[in-house]
């Protein structure tokens, strides 16, 4: 019975993780783009004067999309396909993250559990399979819209996905040869040692495969500079031209979910997954008191940094009689102090009186936090690249995929295979 509850817990955890990230990512996309382009970004929408740094704007956008009329044009080819296209894309993007391990094995009643929504050893194959299926959502949307621009957008997206799937798969093959497994958890375990003084992460062992994989990851998730499917100047909007309201929003939610899943995969393959460099699960559990102390310390430092940042930056820049931001800042300070205090009290309460099982749970929690942070950093890179590089032209993308990346990936496989067979 507890088995089923654990499975439900794992699925719910990972679903909540990716769904809660969507509004945060929307906000971050807007804020980071604003800061890169020297403008302030969303800062007006508020609930009783509380802006949450612009998060209320994301909520307002979501509410707007939810209550808008979902208009279906009369000219579409097939109502059924038109309706399920965003769902297909959404479902496939969500399923890809199901095999990513979020933490090391933890033992309950002698049974080992892995923090993975679907316990499946062929994780890499599952991921590649569903990532390529997700392009069907875009193709169905473009075809059923019965609109030349939509069709062109989906064709461009499909051709881009095909040409980048191959170098992506080949880059993964060289990593599979290196790690000698297709289970994503084995990938992480293989990265826990050290290599020439550096942590033995995939990016240090196989830098070429890492570069190829990350470039293809941008194309695979339809993000700039490879967002062929969109293109306001060439094809009006692309495959989602005829969609409105929530079905339109689902395409973007799917994009953010695919981005999260891809970031999680990049972290798992190339950045050591959930593990901290030089530290294994066992050593974390053995020294759980130090871990608890450092959690409390890091939380306090971050709380103080946040308070300093808010007091310096969240200020009104013009003369006003009733300054709402001062009231807002007091609420932020109070919330920060309460959250930090809760984390500190919990950490210090468990200090020194945890059994073996409790120590393991602490280590698992640390793994979850580390994995979430690493994923978040890669997501920031995704957004940062989007606001740095312009969109590539269609023929440039094709040439890069077929003529540059694919031979490089094959070369990388040959070198890897030679090193693995004759090197050891």
């Amino acid at each position: 019975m507890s088995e089923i509850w654990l499975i439900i817990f794992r699925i719910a955890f990972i679903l909540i993780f990716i769904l809660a990230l969507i509004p945060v990512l929307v906000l971050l996309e807007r804020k980071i783009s604003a800061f890169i382009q020297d403008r302030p970004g969303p800062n007006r929408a508020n609930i009783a004067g509380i802006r949450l740094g612009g998060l209320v704007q994301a909520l307002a956008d979501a509410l707007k999309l939810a209550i808008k009329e979902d208009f279906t044009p009369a000219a579409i080819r097939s109502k059924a396909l038109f309706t399920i296209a965003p769902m297909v894309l959404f479902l496939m993007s969500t399923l890809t993250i199901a095999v990513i391990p979020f933490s090391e094995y933890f033992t309950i009643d002698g049974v080992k559990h892995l923090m993975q929504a679907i316990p499946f050893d062929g994780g890499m194959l599952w991921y590649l399979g569903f990532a390529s299926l997700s392009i069907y959502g875009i193709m169905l949307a473009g075809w059923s819209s019965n609109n030349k621009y939509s069709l062109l957008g989906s064709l461009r997206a499909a051709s881009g996905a095909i040409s980048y799937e191959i170098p992506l798969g080949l880059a993964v093959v060289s990593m599979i040869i290196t790690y000698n497994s297709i289970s994503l958890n084995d990938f992480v375990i293989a990265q826990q040692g050290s290599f020439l003084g550096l942590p033995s992460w995939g990016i240090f062992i196989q830098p070429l495969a890492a570069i190829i994989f990350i470039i293809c990851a941008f194309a695979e998730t339809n993000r700039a500079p490879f967002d062929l499917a969109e293109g306001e100047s060439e094809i009006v909007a692309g495959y989602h031209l005829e969609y409105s309201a929530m079905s339109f929003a689902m395409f973007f939610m799917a994009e953010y979910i695919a981005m999260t899943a891809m970031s999680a995969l990049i972290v798992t393959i190339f950045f050591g997954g959930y593990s901290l460099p030089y530290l294994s699960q066992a050593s974390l559990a053995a020294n759980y008191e130090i871990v608890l102390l450092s959690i409390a310390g890091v939380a306090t430092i971050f709380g103080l940094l946040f308070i300093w940042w808010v007091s310096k930056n969240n200020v009104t820049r013009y003369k006003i009689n009733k300054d709402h931001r001062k009231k807002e800042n007091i609420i932020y300070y109070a919330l920060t102090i309460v959250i930090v205090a809760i984390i500190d009290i919990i950490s210090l309460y468990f200090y020194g009186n945890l059994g073996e099982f409790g120590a393991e749970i602490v280590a698992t929690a640390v793994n979850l936090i580390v994995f979430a942070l690493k994923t978040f950093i890669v997501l920031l890179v995704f957004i940062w690249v989007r606001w740095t590089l312009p969109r590539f032209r269609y023929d440039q993308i094709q040439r890069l995929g077929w003529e540059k990346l694919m031979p490089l990936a094959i070369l990388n496989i040959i070198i890897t295979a030679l090193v693995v067979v004759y090197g050891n």
Partner: protein
Amino acid sequence: MAIKIKKIERKKMPFLERIYIFYIIAGMARTFKHFIRNLLNTKNIEFLEYPEQKPEDISPRYRGLHRLTKYDNGELKCVACDMCATACPAKCIFIEACEVPNSKEKAPKVFNIDLLECVFCGLCVEACPKDAIRMDSGIFTKVEGSKDSFISDINELSSRKRGEF
């Protein structure tokens, strides 16, 4: 006349530029510098918090909302000649004239400008023979809740001052 042909020799890109990756990293470093500078101190971002702060560097030639000018004795200069309404490409000016006793000239009874139609081209100002309509009010936005409130009537137009925000 012979066609002049100028041949531009394309220089071959150096190797570092052709493999892109280092220049992409350089570009990302540039944007990251902006990001960090603005994140650490948002006062580095120059912007106006618009409804509370107003721009102060608007040129006097800027076309704001219309106003009707008056003589020193408080009488409107407008003689309801309909020149502005004729010149208006958007057909947004509606004038009804009435006679002024003991005078050869007319005066406007109704002078409505539909600001939702107006394209702010300034042709009405050019067309006016009496210099009665101007667009130097300095008001550059009008925020209202209903469509009716975007029709400026004669009282509103004549009570505006020059350069008031």
